[in-house]
C-alpha cells in the first residue's frame, strides 16, 4: 500500500538523517572539548612562561615529542624530495618529533583554490605561490607565526622574501623559494647573443626565421612587467587582516601609454604567441618563463640553449628595459586546533625551508632559494637560469598582495591592445577602461565618486595626477594653492573620470601667480582665487 511506501521512505530518511546528524552530533561536543583545552593552556602559560616565550620554544622539545600524522601538498615534481626531506627531519631533530607524512602532488598554483574549498580537509603543510597569501589569510587557511618562528623567517631570508610572508605586522608563512619570476630563454641559432637586449631585434630575428615568441602577455603577471619597465606602479594597500583597503595604481598615465606601445609592438607581430610553456619544440625561438621550465628547455634546445634577462624596447628614441614581477613560493602551516601539533608542524616547516633543504631544491630542480646563505652558495650562483633571474631582479618589482580580481582585469589590457590599431587614442582607451574596471571592483565610496579634483599641467603634474578639492556646499576649493604660470591648463573633474568635468574647454591661466582653484559645481563655473 501507499502507506507502506510512505513509511519505508520515511524510515530510510530517518536512517540517513541519523547517520549524518548523529555523526555531526558526536563531533559537536568533541569540538567543544577540544576548544577548551588550548584555551586553558594559553591562559595557564603566562604564570610560568612570561617573557621568555621564544627561548622556551626550544626548551619545550620534550613536550613536542610524539608521532604526528601530517598531510603535505607539494608540487608533483617535488613529492619525492619532500618525502626524503621529512625522513631526514625525523632522524635529525632533537625534539623527538616523528612525522608520519603523506605527501600529495598538488601544484602550488592550485593551493589556494583547494584550501578555500575546504580548509578542514586541506593539507597541514602546503606549498603556495605568494599571490595567494591574502586569499589564504582571508579563508583562515594560514596560521599566524609565533615570535620565534617570525624571527626565524626574518633572520634567514632575503629581504624581499621576508616581505612576501608578511601581512600587516604579522608573518603567516615560511619563504621557500625566491624564484617566482620570469626571464627569457632563447634559441641561439635564431637569436644571436648580441640581439638579446633589444625587443625590436629579437622580433626581427624571429620574423626572419619564421619562429614564434612565446610570452604570456594575456596574463597580468606578465604584462604588468612592461608598465614597471616604464616606471609605473600598482600597489594594493591592506589592513592587518589582509583585507584590501585601496589601490595605488598609475598604469593609465603617459608612462603607461609608453608601456602599451611596447606591448603593441610585440602582440601586433604575427609571430607572437600567448603562451608561457616550453614551446621550443613547437615553433618558438624565444620563451619568456621561469625556472620551473629550465630542465625541459635545456633538454629541448641542447647546444642552442640561451638564457638572459628580458630585453629593452624603444619608444620615441628612449630605451625601456622590460620589468617583471618577482615573487616567492611559500610553505604554509594550516591552523591547528592542537597547539602541540601546531608547534611540531612549525618545527618541520622551519626545517623544510632551511638552508639545506633549499640547496637540495637548487640542485634537483634549479629552484632559486630565499634563504640568504643558500642564495650565496656557489651551487646557486653557477646556475645560468638563476643568474638570469638575478640579472632581471634589478628591473623587477616585488609582487605585493594583490586583490584576486585584479588579475582578471589587468590581463585584459593586452587583449584590448591586441584588438586595437595601435594608435595613441586606442591604447589610451584600453588603459582608461582598465582604470574604470579597477575603480568599479573597488567600489569607490560615494565620497570619492562625487569629489572633484584638479587635473592638468598644474604643480608639476602633466594631466596624470588628480589634486584634491574640498567642498563647501556646491563650492569646491582646491586643498592647496598652486603656483601657476600663464598658459597653464587644467580642468576640474568628478570621480577621477571625464564624465563630469569643468570647464568644457581647458581652463587657461592668463596671468601667472599663486591661486586656489574654485569651482561652483552647480553652474560649472571655474575661478581662480589668489592666495594670501
Amino acid at each position, binding site marked *: 500500500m501507499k502507506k507502506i511506501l510512505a513509511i519505508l521512505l520515511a524510515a530510510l530518511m530517518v536512517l540517513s538523517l541519523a547517520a549524518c546528524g548523529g555523526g555531526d552530533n558526536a563531533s559537536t561536543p568533541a569540538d567543544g572539548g577540544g576548544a577548551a583545552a588550548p584555551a586553558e593552556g594559553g591562559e595557564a602559560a603566562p604564570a610560568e612562561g612570561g617573557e621568555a616565550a621564544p627561548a622556551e620554544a626550544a626548551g619545550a622539545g620534550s613536550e613536542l615529542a610524539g608521532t604526528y600524522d601530517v598531510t603535505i601538498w607539494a608540487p608533483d615534481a617535488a613529492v619525492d624530495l619532500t618525502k626524503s626531506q621529512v625522513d631526514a627531519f625525523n632522524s635529525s631533530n632533537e625534539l623527538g618529533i616523528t612525522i608520519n607524512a603523506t605527501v600529495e*602532488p598538488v601544484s602550488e598554483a592550485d593551493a589556494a583554490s583547494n584550501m578555500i574549498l*575546504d580548509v578542514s580537509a586541506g593539507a597541514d603543510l602546503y606549498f603556495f605561490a605568494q599571490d595567494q597569501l591574502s586569499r589564504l589569510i582571508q579563508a583562515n587557511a594560514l596560521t599566524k607565526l609565533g615570535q620565534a618562528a617570525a624571527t626565524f623567517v626574518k633572520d634567514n631570508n632575503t629581504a624581499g622574501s621576508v616581505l612576501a610572508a608578511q601581512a600587516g605586522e604579522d608573518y603567516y608563512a615560511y619563504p621557500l623559494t625566491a624564484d617566482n619570476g620570469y626571464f627569457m630563454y632563447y634559441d641561439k641559432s635564431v637569436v644571436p647573443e648580441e640581439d638579446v637586449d633589444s625587443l625590436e631585434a629579437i622580433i626581427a630575428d624571429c620574423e626572419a626565421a619564421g619562429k614564434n615568441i612565446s610570452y604570456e602577455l594575456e596574463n597580468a603577471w606578465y604584462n604588468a612587467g612592461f608598465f614597471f619597465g616604464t616606471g609605473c606602479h600598482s600597489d594594493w594597500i591592506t589592513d592587518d587582516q589582509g583585507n584590501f583597503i585601496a589601490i595605488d595604481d598609475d598604469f593609465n598615465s603617459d608612462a603607461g601609454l609608453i608601456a602599451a606601445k611596447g606591448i603593441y609592438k610585440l602582440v601586433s607581430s604575427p609571430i607572437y604567441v600567448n603562451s608561457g610553456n616550453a614551446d621550443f619544440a613547437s615553433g618558438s625561438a624565444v620563451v619568456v618563463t621561469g625556472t620551473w621550465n629550465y630542465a625541459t628547455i635545456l633538454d629541448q634546445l641542447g647546444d642552442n640553449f640561451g638564457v638572459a634577462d628580458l630585453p629593452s624596447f624603444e619608444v620615441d628614441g628612449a630605451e625601456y628595459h622590460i620589468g617583471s614581477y618577482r615573487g616567492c613560493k611559500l610553505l604554509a602551516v594550516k591552523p591547528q586546533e592542537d597547539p602541540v601539533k601546531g608547534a611540531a608542524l612549525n618545527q618541520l616547516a622551519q626545517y623544510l625551508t632551511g638552508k639545506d633543504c633549499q640547496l637540495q631544491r637548487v640542485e634537483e630542480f634549479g629552484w632559486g632559494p630565499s634563504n640568504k646563505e643558500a642564495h650565496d652558495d656557489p651551487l646557486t650562483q653557477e646556475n645560468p637560469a638563476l643568474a638570469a633571474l638575478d640579472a632581471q631582479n634589478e628591473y623587477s618589482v616585488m609582487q605585493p598582495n594583490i586583490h584576486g580580481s585584479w588579475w582578471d582585469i589587468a590581463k585584459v589590457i593586452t587583449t584590448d591592445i591586441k584588438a586595437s590599431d595601435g594608435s595613441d587614442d586606442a591604447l589610451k582607451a584600453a588603459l582608461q577602461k582598465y582604470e574604470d574596471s579597477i575603480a568599479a571592483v573597488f567600489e569607490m565610496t560615494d565620497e570619492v565618486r562625487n569629489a572633484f579634483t584638479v587635473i592638468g599641467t598644474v604643480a608639476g603634474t602633466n594631466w596624470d595626477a588628480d589634486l584634491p578639492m574640498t567642498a563647501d556646499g556646491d563650492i569646491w576649493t582646491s586643498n592647496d594653492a598652486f603656483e601657476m604660470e600663464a598658459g597653464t591648463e587644467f580642468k576640474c573633474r568628478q570621480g577621477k573620470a571625464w564624465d563630469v568635468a569643468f570647464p568644457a574647454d581647458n581652463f587657461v591661466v592668463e596671468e601667472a601667480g599663486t591661486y586656489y582653484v574654485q569651482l561652483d559645481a552647480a553652474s560649472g563655473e571655474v575661478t581662480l582665487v589668489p592666495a594670501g
Partner: protein
Amino acid sequence: MNEKRHMGLRTLNRISNTTIYILLIIISVIWLLPFIFIVLQSFRVESTYQVGYVIPHEWGLQNYINLWNSDFKRWYLNTFIIALASAVLITVIQLCMSYTLSRFRFKLRGPMMRFMLILGMFPGMLTMIILYRVLSDLGLTQANAVPGLILVGVASSGMGYYVSKGFFDTIPKSLDEAARVDGATRFQVLYKIILPLAKPIVIYTILTAFMGPWGDFVFARYVAFGTSSGYNVAVGMYSWLTNDQIARMYTTFCAGGVIVAVPVTVLFLCLQKYYVEGVTGGAVKG
C-alpha cells in the same frame, strides 16, 4: 529510349555512390585521425612535450613505463571499481524506475514525472559543493572518494530513466495483461516476461553506466580533493596537462589515454549491437 534512360540512372547512381564513398572516407579519416595521433604520440620517447610532427623519431615504451611507475595504476583501479559498481547498481535503479513508470498507472505517477522533469532543469553543477560537504561529513571524500562517487552516482541515477522507459514503452502491454490473467504477480511478470525481452536496454544501461565514470572529472576532482589515492583517471590525467606539468607529462598523458580508451572501446564495439538497439529503441521515445 527506355534502355538509355535506365543507363543514365545507373551512371547517375554510380556517380552519387562514388561521391558518397569519397565523403565517407574523408569523414572516417577526420574521425579517426586524432586517435591515431594519440596512439603514435604515446610511443614517442625522444621528448615528452608537444611537438610539431606526428610520427615519432624514436619509438619506445618509456611512456607506458612511466605510467606504471606513477599513481596511474591506483587511479585506473579506482575508476574500474567505480565503473563496475555503477554498472550494476545504476542499472538496477534505472530499470526499477523506468519499468515502473512505463508499466504502472498510479496516482503519483504524473506528478512524479513532472517533478523529475523540473528537477532536471537545474544545472547539476550547482549542487557539487553541497554534495561534497555531505560526503565529507559521511567520511566519503579524499582517500574514500571511491565509495563516495559510487553513492552519489547511483543515488541520483534514477533521474536518467527516460531512455529505458522509452524502450519499455515499445514492449506491448498485452503481454503483461495476459500473464496477469494467468495469475502471475507483478513481480513474476517483470522477472519472467519483461526482462528477457528487455535484454538490449539492460545491456545499453550497463554499458552507459560503465562508461560514465571514465570521463567524470569535475565532481570527482572535488571529492578526491588533493588526495592522489582517491583520484580517478580523469582527475589524475587532467593534472598532467596543467601548465607546470605538460612539458614533462604530455606523452605520458597520451599513453594513459590509450590505456583508458582501449578496453572501453573494445567492450563498446563488442556490445555495439545492443547499444544501437537501446539508443534507437529508447532515446527518441522518452
